[in-house]
Each structure stands twice: as C-alpha cells, then as structure tokens.
C-alpha cells in the first residue's frame, strides 16, 4: 500500500466532480475529498452536476449518489458520457437495488457507508485509472 501522503501529491491536480443531495454527506465527503484533491466541484443534484461538467469539461472523475431529486445520478452520468465517454465514474449509493448500467469496465459502484479503507481504495483506484 502506498503512503497516503504520496498519494495526496499525485492526486492533487486531478479535477473531480462530487454530487450528493444530502447536505451532511456533501460536507463530510466533500471535506474528505478536498484533503486530497485541489479541484473538487461539489453539486447537490444531477442537474447541477451536469451543468458543472459542461462548464468545466476537464473534469476527470465524477463521484455521485444515485437517487437524487431532479435528476438521478445515472441519468446525469449518461449525459456526461455523451460528452466524455472515457470519464471515470464512481457511484456511491445507500440504496441496495438501484439499477446501474456498467458501461465502462472502469466505473465503480460502492455502497454507503464507506469505511476509511474503502476511501483509501477509492483514492488508489482513481490514481490508477486517471494517472
């Protein structure tokens, strides 16, 4: 396992979009991500997320909840993939039976709640896929 400090150095330039409708999740997960990434765009629903992606198309990683008001994570991801099919997607959901189209082999689905190791694995995965 790589040292988390070196991981932080390699990851800090990656631009990341995080979408979740739950404020407390946004805050918690957002502040965690910000510890490793310098550029974290945080949105509260799919619509906002899609908008944010369209504005900054250099976003390399999208981390999103699945069930959200206005636009679900899956729909948002479909739209984003139309723009950038190679983008790396990570779904984080609390619901168990949510249908999920795995269009790219790289895309990941993880279930809440996430342990510290889960988070570290995610960071390592991002590092592998993007860098």
């Amino acid at each position, binding site marked *: 396992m790589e040292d988390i*400090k070196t991981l932080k150095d390699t990851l800090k330039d990656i631009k990341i979009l995080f979408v979740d409708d*739950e404020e407390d*999740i946004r805050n*918690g997960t957002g502040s965690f991500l910000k*510890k490793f990434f310098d550029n974290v765009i945080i949105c509260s629903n799919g619509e906002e997320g899609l908008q944010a992606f369209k504005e900054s198309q250099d976003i390399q990683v999208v981390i999103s909840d699945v069930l959200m008001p206005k636009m679900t994570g899956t729909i948002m991801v479909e739209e984003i993939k139309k723009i950038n099919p190679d983008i790396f997607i990570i779904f984080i959901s*609390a619901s168990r039976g949510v249908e999920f189209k795995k269009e790219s082999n790289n895309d990941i689905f993880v279930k*809440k*709640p*996430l342990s510290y190791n889960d*988070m570290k694995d995610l960071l390592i995965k991002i590092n592998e896929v993007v860098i």
Partner: protein
Amino acid sequence: MHNNFTTTQLRFDIFKRLFIVFSILLVILIYIVYLAQNKSFEQYNTISQKHIHKTIKHTLNHNINQYRNLLIRLLIMEDVSKYVANFDREGLYKVLKPKFDFLKKENQYFATLHIITKDGKSFLRVHAKDHFGDNIMQLRPMVQEIMKNKTTLIGYETGLHATAFRIIMPLYNGKEFLGSIGIGINPNYFISQISELLSEQGMLFLEDQHLKLFSTNIDFKIGNYRLQTKISEKTKELLNALPKGYAFEDSIQITLNDRIYFIHYENLKDYDNHTLGKYLFFEDITDRINSHNSIRWQLIAVVILFIIIVFILVSGSIMKFSRQLNRFYQDIINTTEENESYLKAVENGSKNLICTIFKGEIFTVNNAFLEFMEYKSLDTFKQQHKLLSELFVKRAGYLDRIIDGKDWFKYVVEKPNKMHKVIFQKDSQEYIFSVTVSKVKINNDRRYLVTFSDITEIETIKNRYEFAINAAQDGIWDWNLQTNELYFTPQWKKQLGYEDNELKNALSTWEEHIHPDDKEQAVKDIQASHNNETEFYENIHRLKHKDGHWVWILDRGQTIFDENGLAVRMIGSHTDITKIKELEEEIKEKDKVMMTQSRSAAMGEMISMIAHQWRQPLAIISMDANNILADIELDMVEQESLKEISLEIINQTNELSKTIDDFKEFFKPVKESEMVLVEEVIKRAFSVVGKSLENNNVAVRKIFSSKQEIDTYSRELMQVFINILNNAKEVLIEKNVQAKEILIELEDTEDTIIIKICDNAGGIPDSIIDKIFEPYFSTKDAKTGTGLGLYMSKTIIEKHLSGTLRVINTHEGACFIIELPFKKANKNIEDK
C-alpha cells in the same frame, strides 16, 4: 205441453177416487142412520106403549080412588050407619037420593049405591028403592067375602041388576058391624076416560060366561071375550082389520085406510084379582111414523147434503191444491230449467274440467273440458272417444277405467275421502288432475257430476318439496305444542348417525342429545319464539352423534300461532354446520397465521425503512470518522475541526435516535381504540415512508377537509396507510412515471370519513383488479412483496375497523378509497 196433461190427468184421477170414497161413505152413513133411526123408533114405541099402559092403569086407579073417597065421605057425612041401625030405610033413601042423583048426573056410568045388612039381605038400593029384602049373599061373592072379613073390596062383579065395577066397604055403628055399603060403576066409564087420552075409541070385552049387560051395536068376539061397548063405524072397521087369531097381545100394529094403529089392551079384574074382561084400545100412530119417517128422510138428506158439501169442499181444495201443485210443478220445471242453465253457466265459468256421466257415457261437458281436450263440441269428442277413461294414462296410483271391479266414477263416489288423481296426456306433456264425483239428480235422471281440477303444478311442487325434504341435508322437525308431540324426519336422525327407528319422536330425544353448555341458550331462544318475541327462532348448538362426537347444528324455526295468539305449533330445520364450523376454525387459524405473516412482513419493511433512514446518518458518521482518520494520517489534526466533526457525529446520532422514536410507534402493542385525527395518522405514516417517497421523487399532494376525530385503532390504520403508500411508490417507480405523484384526500360525510389515496401510475389492469385483495397475490417479485399487504389492509379496515376498503381506476391511476365510521363498531381487536 205434456206437463199440463199430467196434472189434468192427476186431477181427474184424484177426483174419481174421491168420488168413489165419498159414495161408499154416503151409503154407509145412510145405512147407519137408517138402522139407528129404526132402533130409536122401536125404543120409542116400547116406551110409548109402556107409557100408555101406565096411563090406562093410572086413569083406572085414579077413578077408583075417587069413588072410594066419595063413598067414605058419604058414610061419614050422612051418618048412613044410624039409619041402617034403626032400619030407617025411608030416612036413608031421602038422605042418599039427592047424592045419588047428583053423582048420576055427573057421571052417566055411575050405576048403583047399595046398602046390605049383615045377614046378606038388601037393605036399600038407592038406584031401585022398591027392590029390597032379597038375600044376595049367594049371588054375589064380594058380599059373602065382606060379611066374612069385614074389609073394603074393589073389583068387577056381576050383580042382580048390573054388571059393574064395585067398591064395597064395611058398615059399622060404633063397634057393631051392620053390613056393607057399595057403589057400582059401568066399566065403560073407564073406556070413556081413557079414550079421551088416546083419541080413538076404547072397547070392553067380557068373558062370555058373565052376564051380558051392556047393549052393543055389533056382536064381536075375541076368543072367549065378547064386545061390551057401543062402537062407531070406524072402530068397527078397526076391529075387522084385526089380524086373524088375535088374542089380546101387545105391540100389534094394523093398517087401515093408510093409517097405522097400535093396539093396546088392559085387564079388567074382580076383587080377587081374576081377569074377567079386557079393555082394548087403538092408538093412531100414523103421524108419529110419518114424523119418524120424515125425520129419517131429513136425516138422510142432511147426511147427503153434508157429504156433498164436504165432497165439494174437499175436491175444491184438491182442485186448488192441484192448481197450486201445477203452478209449483211449473215453477219447479222453470227452476230446473233455470238451474240447468245456471249450472251450465257455472260449469262453463269454472276453470276445472266438468262433465256429467249418464248411463256410463259422457252426457254434458263444460267449455273448459272441450278447451282442454281440444274439441269444438261434445259430439266430435264422442265420435273420437266412446269413453272418457280411454284418455286416462295408465299409472299406478292413478285412476283407470275399472277399479276394484267398478267403473272409475262409481269407485270415486264411494270413496269421497280419498284423493283421486288421473293423468291426461296432451302434446306429449302429462297433466295431473284431482277427481271428485258426486251423484246428482237432474230431471229425474241420475247422473254423475265429475270435476277434474288441474293439480299438475301442485303435484310438481309437492314432488319437488318431498324430494327436497328427502334429499336435503337438512333435518326437519315439527312440534305440536298442544299435544307436545315432536316429529323428526329421518334426515334429522341421520345427522346424528341414527336410523329412523332408533330415536323416538319426542322432545326428550333432543334434550338428551344437546350439549349441556348449549342447552340453556337454545331453550331460551325457543321460549322467546313461543312468546312471539322473535320473528324467527335461530340457534346454533351441538348435538351428540351416535359415535360420540359433537355435531354442530344450525337450528332454525318458526312458531305458528292460532287466532288467539296461542303458540300451537313450531316447525324448524336442522342444518349440519359442523363442516362450516371446522372451516371457520380453520379460517380463524389461517387468519392468525396471515396476520402474523403480515405483521412480520410489515416489520421487515419497517426494518428496511429504518435501515434506509439510518444509512445516511451512518454514512455521515462514517465519513466523519474517515475525515478524522485522514487528518491523523496527513498530520492535519486540528482541534477545531475535531470538535466540529464530533458535534456532527452527535447530530447524526440524534437523527438515528429520532428515527427509532418514529418507528417505535409502529411496534407499540395495540390495546384500545383511541380518538384520533386521521390527518395525524397520515403524518405518522409519512414519518416512516416520507423519506422513501422523497428519495424516489414522489410528490405528495394533500387535500384535507376533515376535522373529525375518529375512534379507531390508529396503529393498524397507520399500517394500512404505509402499505398503500408503499404500494403506490413501488408502482410509480416500476412504471417509471416522470412526475410521480400521490394524492391524499380526506373528506367527512355525515358519520364517516372517506380517505382517498390515489397515484398517477396508470391504474390496475382489469385482469387483476378483482384479485388484488386476495391473500398471497402479488405483482412484485418475491424480494419486495409478500402478497399479503392489500389482503391484510382489507382485513384490518373491514374486520377490525368496521370500515370499507375498495379500489377504483381513475384516468390517472389507481385510487384506494377507505371509508371509516366516526365511531368504531364494537369489535375487540385483541381477539384476533
């Protein structure tokens, strides 16, 4: 008209007979009158003769007494004894002569006054003064007798000068017997006296040996008696008319010159009672006979008249009666004719088939008969069928042409109390008729009046009823409350495993078999029915089966009352509901299982919902922990951020706790109903499912116009709401509806609240809409649904909360409609 002829004939006949009877009667009556009259005439004659004889005797005696008294007076007044004692003949003559003359003058038949001395010599003959001194003792027996016995003597005697009827008395001077004094009267004197009485002349006949003293105009003899009286020519004729050989007999009748005479005689006797002569009298009885005959003829005339009058009266009344009889007869004929036409009308008015049979053949029929037999007239019917019995369908128990060796109608007449039936076939259908026959007499004809009543329908119903009674599983009982007799059908007994003969028909049979725990209520219910407190009797009780197990019986019955409201009879049925009871128990058991299942399912759902609720806070807490761990590893730990994170964690645990509180409500044990606003219950349901709806983008629209608190089990109701809301959510997600919406409406009616929970998921397919409330029916995968949700919801609403739950499809989607009463029915949910 022959009827008139008959009555005239009848009248003539009666008249003829009457005439003969009256004629005979008349002859008999006349004969009786004749005999009676003759008899009475004879009697009258006898009485008359006796009377005449009496009169003759009386007249004789009277005259004799008169002259005896005269003689006594002469003796006393003229002192005859003194002159005789002194022999003073001249003196005595002077004294007696005027007396004698006077008497002679008075009565020409006064003949002698003679005094005789005791030596039997004549002292003085006043009628012949100069002739005295002669001894007359020898000549006259009477003088000899008086000298000897010295007593008064009366009688006929022939004397010296005259034959006379004499009265001689002894003569005394003091005690000295001087001789006698006597008077003599011509016997014809008495004839004159009596002839005056009899209107015809009398005659004296004297015996020939005695002196013939009296001058006569003819010489006439009857036997030894010679006529001594002067008689008229007429009397002479009468004497000549006497029958030959007549010898002074009574009751002899002679007829002379158209006149009829009776002959009477009387004896003339001497002092010693010897008959010396006969008096003979003729009595003219012509008038008497004539009057007798005229009376006879009058009587006969009266009898004839009477008979004629009676005959006229009787025949008159008979004629009158006959005329009345004729009128009456005419009336009867008219009435008979009227009756017959009336009978015809009645027959034709009847729906029954009526015919009369005369001499074994059909005589008349009514319209209904022809209509049924499909003939236009009786003649055409008779051309086809000589006998009515040809049409009888032969079947056991029904009439045939000959029964017991008799014609069927005679057989029916003789057994009027029996139900007689006959079958006619028409258009390949059988018709059953009941048959009654009565003997009637119309116009002197003896006919049989036959009535056929169509009982096909009744028979069918009867058969069906009998079949029903026999075939039905129900046992029937029939209880006569007056005699306390109780009849059980064989099926009743069969229900308890007995043959018909194994149980007796008595109330005790029921009492012996009923379960002791059920008896009190059953008797109470029966009593209530007898007292007319209940319209029907219904009771469920157990009866002991022959093999020992209990049979559940639904006993239903009805009491029948008489006009005074007295319970007289009770009839009822026993339905074996053991199977139903068992099924009920089974269902109860099943319900219990399903309830438990549904509760578990609901709980599972709750738990999954708790899990859902908890996932976010747990995710947050977990992420907070991740941040701390990351900070530690990155050497970025700051007191401030640690504090912040800790507070956040506490916040989230409060959130978890709150979730538990919300769900705790659901697990509360149900005890009693409570007054609650439905709105409040919905709010509680939303605290459970709200998040899930929110997460799935399901909008909820609420239209609450209810302000009414209702009395209900709120927890159960909440379960129903959660169930329906979850179903709506699931189907909305499944159908992937863009604008998911659930509409909740609350509305009060007069005493209920209506709760509508509608979605816009397009509605329930018609093919399954009827099944969605069935248990274990589900459209969802086994993962998400148990198939009990809606079944349990319906059970809860309808069985526990006394409401209704139904579903309809609107143009947007399904709409579940719950209606609940403000006040729950009195059902205890704990039983379940």
